C-alpha cells in the first residue's frame, strides 16, 4: 500500500490555537476520486510558535469525520515518489469545523512538548471506511497557548 504524508504547512494559512478544538488536518474517502479505505500510520504533533509566558497544556485529538468544514485543499506527498496520487482527499487549516463523531486518539501535552506516534503493526493503524466524506480530523486546543501548531499525518490508501 502506498504511503502518503501531509501537514498543515502544505497549504493555506495556519490557524492559531484557541480554547475550542481547531482542526489542522483532515483526510477522508471521496467518491469524487474513488472511495477507498485508508489508515493513519503516523501522527506528529507540536506547537509551531513561541511558547506562552504562562505554562500550559495543549490537548491533541483525532476524531472521526462525517462531513467536511471550511478548509484549504492540500496534496499529500507519496513517500515513494514512484507511487501515484492518493485517492483520499486531504484538507488543512480549517476556519470552520466539520462534523465529527468519535474521538479515537488523544493526548494532553505541555505546550513545549512534541510527540510522534506510529503504528508499525497492521492492526494498530486508525482505519476509516470507504464512504464519501468519512475520515479522520486532527485537531488541538489549549486554554492558554494561542500560537500556531503543527500536525503531521502519515497514512496509507487501502
Amino acid at each position: 500500500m502506498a504511503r502518503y504524508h501531509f501537514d498543515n504547512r502544505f497549504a493555506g494559512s495556519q490557524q492559531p490555537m484557541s480554547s475550542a478544538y481547531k482542526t489542522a488536518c483532515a483526510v477522508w474517502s471521496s467518491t469524487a476520486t474513488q472511495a477507498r479505505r485508508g489508515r493513519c500510520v503516523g501522527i506528529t504533533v507540536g506547537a509551531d510558535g513561541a511558547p506562552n509566558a504562562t505554562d500550559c497544556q495543549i490537548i491533541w485529538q483525532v476524531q472521526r469525520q462525517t462531513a467536511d468544514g471550511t478548509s484549504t485543499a492540500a496534496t499529500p506527498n507519496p513517500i515513494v515518489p514512484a507511487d501515484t496520487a492518493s485517492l483520499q482527499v486531504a484538507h488543512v487549516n480549517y476556519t470552520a469545523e466539520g462534523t465529527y463523531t468519535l474521538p479515537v486518539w488523544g493526548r494532553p501535552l505541555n505546550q513545549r512538548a512534541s510527540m510522534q506516534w506510529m503504528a508499525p503493526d497492521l492492526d494498530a493503524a486508525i482505519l476509516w471506511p470507504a464512504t464519501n466524506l468519512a475520515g479522520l480530523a486532527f485537531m488541538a486546543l489549549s486554554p492558554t497557548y494561542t500560537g500556531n501548531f503543527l500536525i503531521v499525518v502519515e497514512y496509507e490508501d487501502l
Partner: protein
Amino acid sequence: MPYGHEMRGQRGYSIITDPSAKKLTTEEDTYTCGHCGKVVWVQPLKGPLGGRCTCCDHLICLACVGKGCRPLQKQLELMERRRQYVEVLDRPLSE
C-alpha cells in the same frame, strides 16, 4: 506478501519530547482497540486498560469491554453498505 516489519498486531509506539519535564524523552506503547479503533496508551500501574475479546481475540479498550464482539472491520463494512444502500435509494425510479 507480508513484509517483516508489518507484523499483524495492534501495537503502536509513541515518543514524547518535553524539555519542561524531568525526563526529556518518554517512550510509551499503545494499542488500537479492535472494536472501535481507539488508540489506548499503555501506562503501567495506572488502572485498568481494557481487555481482550474472546471472540475475535483482539485487545479492546475499556469502553468496549462487556459490549459484545463488534470487530472494527465488520463495523466499517456496515458503514460502507449503509452508504451504498442510501445511494441506491436516492437513484431515480427510471434507472
